[in-house]
């Protein structure tokens, strides 16, 4: 189950927290400073939570934790701040997807771990809600 690992990753999973370097580079997920690198070279940075669908694929043969979803759609999203992120798409069918369509981040269940069902939550993307 590895409770400390699940706990340590919640910033990136819940809030898309990555890091931005003083020279403008962005990385996701956050990583510890490398040997010899100043500790403050990378600062916390929250990725944009909207973007457009850069690419996607539908997986129809999935691991057991996805057996409640016969089709799992995975997309690459070009975020509004220019970053590319890979994420599961939700609230949609493959027939509804078009490259370039507007998508937005939501927090959803990623599943359960361990025999006692620790619930894991994280980011997914869905077609942008039309008001």
């Amino acid at each position, binding site marked *: 189950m590895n409770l400390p690992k699940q706990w340590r990753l*919640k910033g990136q999973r*819940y*809030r898309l927290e990555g890091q931005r370097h003083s020279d403008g580079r962005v990385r996701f997920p956050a990583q510890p400073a490398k040997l010899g690198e100043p500790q403050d070279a990378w600062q916390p940075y*929250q990725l944009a939570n909207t973007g457009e669908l850069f690419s996607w694929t539908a997986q129809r043969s999935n691991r057991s934790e996805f057996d*409640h*979803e016969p089709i799992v759609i995975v997309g690459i999203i070009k975020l509004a701040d220019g970053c590319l992120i890979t994420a599961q798409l*939700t*609230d949609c069918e493959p027939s509804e997807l078009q490259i370039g369509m507007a998508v937005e981040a*939501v*927090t*959803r*269940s*990623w599943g359960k771990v361990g025999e006692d069902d620790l*619930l894991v*939550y994280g980011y*997914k993307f869905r077609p942008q*809600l*039309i*008001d």
Partner: protein
Amino acid sequence: MRQPERPVGIVGYGAYVPRYRIAAQEIARVWAASEGALPITSKSVPGPDEDTITMAIEAGRNALKRAQIAPQQLAAVWVGSESHPYSVKPSGTIVAEALGTSRWISAADWEFACKAGTEALSAGMGLVGSGMADYVLAIGADTAQGRPGDALEYTAAAAAGALIVGPAQQALATIEATVSYVSDTPDFFRRADRPYPMHGNRFTGEPAYFHHVSTAAKQLLAELGRTAADYHYAVFHQPNVKFPQTVAKQVGFTPEQCQAGLLAGEIGNSYSAASMIGLCAVLDVAQAGDRILLASYGSGAGSDAYSLVVTEALVAARNLAPRTSAYLKRRQLIDYATYAKWRGKIVE
């Protein structure tokens, strides 16, 4: 009647309704021996990756957008529900962490059947009204359970409503006063080890819902020296369409006053969220100066009633997050087999 020393109001609000619906006719196709009158048209169904926590997070984010405050300004994140995903572990801390609040807050879960969310709202009025805090997020969210084939299965739905209580000067709608009325009434209950609740059929009506809601609403109006005619809108807890329409008539409201906040026909009974997203839907259309009566109901039993007045700030703020109608429009019907699979009704 309770009125805080420091005037308070709703400074932000947000709704969430899942994309999926099952038609009442589809449930009747599987279970009903004859086609009788159905209590609603369809009900919302949480997707396979949704629960009370994920819905509360989205409603909370929408409320923060409208409040135009940073998550770190919240002093409390309180989640009312009867379907918290954990029996032991708060939903509130997960929601708070996802919203990005300070860790120096109160985060807790509330339980009072379908009025757990308004319990959090009343407590928020106390915290802000006493001056102990400036902003409190009160959420009502549920993925309600209904035994297969039971009358409850036609209506037990899913949604979340989030309200941020803050100083009246910043409010989109000020809260003039509130009352709470409760009694020990066993109309509906579920023990911790039981998957589905038990309800008392017709006993859930007259001595339970109607008595508590009408008593609370009438008492608030009487103490404020008002009648239903002084209000533009009324929102009552909505386990179906008929109950809120009937209690509205008992208190003196017309169907027109209740129409904007009556969502049960489309999405069913969203339990702790029901009256709160009804209020969200009203705030989506109300104008400055409009007066709103809100009365929740929780089995067990009790009702919280509130009198609100819309301010000039509402019209600009309502466009900062998706309106309730945006969630109602994205309607994807599913069949009973899919519903049964997603809701864990198929036993291996």
